[in-house]
């Protein structure tokens, strides 16, 4: 199959590169629909990767790459449930997200996130599963979860710890501040910064270069240098679920959901 169109994303394969395009309005928030589509993509990867050497993940939403978890859906669906059921459902959701993220992280392809605009929370975590991040100069990265009384729950901290120094991780996590692409490149998060609107082109050009290398060697190198931090990922789910039961989280989620701003991302 060379092209597949799902509700929140699409993929196609051309010249040995799989391109996964996120296209859910307003900014690719990851809720049950996007997760189901990502699961379908992860399942399809088994056969897609036979004809490919690279995967590029990008977004066609003007606002950015991905604004993170669908907090409105999370709040709406968890509110009416008793606490034990709420936690059971949340843990099930997080475990499904982690399975998809781990599949992307360990895919035997060289993976590139081509990001622009808002790359926040779960969107940042999705980008962190990739081997390389190519960022439009207007990209902005942020872990805003502490503002909600939570930690990132889609594997962000363990992957950031794997890739960057602990001081940078603490800065991003504990301040919840957003950083631009230039700063992200200076701390080692971003591989290349492009001019506005050029990230996908540069990602494609990079993917074309990778095609020249022996694929088995590339896969062996990736396995050697990019282990999946399974223990920390499991701990992250436990901590997230513990924090989620606190009333402060409920209040923060309610404030976010009830905000009159169309896109209430600023603290």
């Amino acid at each position: 199959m060379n092209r597949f169109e799902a509700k929140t994303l699409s993929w196609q394969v051309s010249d040995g590169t799989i391109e996964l395009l996120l296209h859910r309005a307003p900014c690719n928030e990851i809720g049950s629909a996007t997760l189901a589509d990502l699961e379908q993509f992860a399942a399809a990867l088994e056969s897609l990767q036979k004809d490919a050497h690279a995967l590029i993940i990008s977004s066609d939403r003007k606002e950015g790459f991905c604004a993170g978890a669908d907090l409105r859906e999370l709040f709406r669906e968890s509110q009416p449930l008793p606490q034990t059921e709420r936690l059971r459902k949340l843990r099930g959701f997080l475990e499904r997200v982690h399975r998809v993220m781990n599949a992307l992280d360990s895919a035997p392809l060289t993976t590139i996130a081509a990001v622009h605009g808002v790359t926040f929370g779960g969107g940042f975590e999705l980008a962190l599963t990739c081997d390389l991040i190519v960022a439009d100069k207007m990209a902005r990265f942020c872990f805003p979860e502490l503002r909600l009384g939570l930690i990132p729950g889609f594997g962000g901290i363990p992957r950031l710890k794997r890739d960057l120094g602990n001081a940078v991780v603490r800065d991003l996590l504990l301040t919840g501040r957003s950083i631009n692409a230039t700063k992200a490149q200076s701390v080692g998060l971003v591989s290349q910064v492009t001019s506005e609107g050029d990230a996908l082109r540069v990602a494609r050009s990079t993917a074309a270069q990778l095609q020249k290398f022996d694929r088995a060697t590339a896969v062996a190198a990736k396995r050697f240098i990019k282990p999946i931090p399974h223990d920390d990922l499991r701990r992250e789910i436990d901590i997230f679920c513990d924090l989620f039961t606190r009333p402060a989280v409920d209040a923060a989620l309610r404030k976010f959901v009830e905000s009159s701003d169309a896109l209430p991302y600023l603290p």
Partner: protein
Amino acid sequence: MPTIENTTEEVLTLAADHFKVPRAQLHAGDDFFKTLGINSLQALDLLTRLEHHFHIELPDYELQGVSDFRTLAERIQSRL
């Protein structure tokens, strides 16, 4: 080092250019959310453009409660 007046003028010019508002319609004391008709996501976009323009890093929490161009320019000035 530019003066605060220079910095404010640069902020107003950049905002007018990017959001396609006549420069003459923007004033230092204006609420940029209202005058430019932008939401918080577009404000982040403005912040990124200002960081690139002035070659500074301006944490978004420093803009908490800031909605007028003059105060925005003061925050930038403190990082120059």
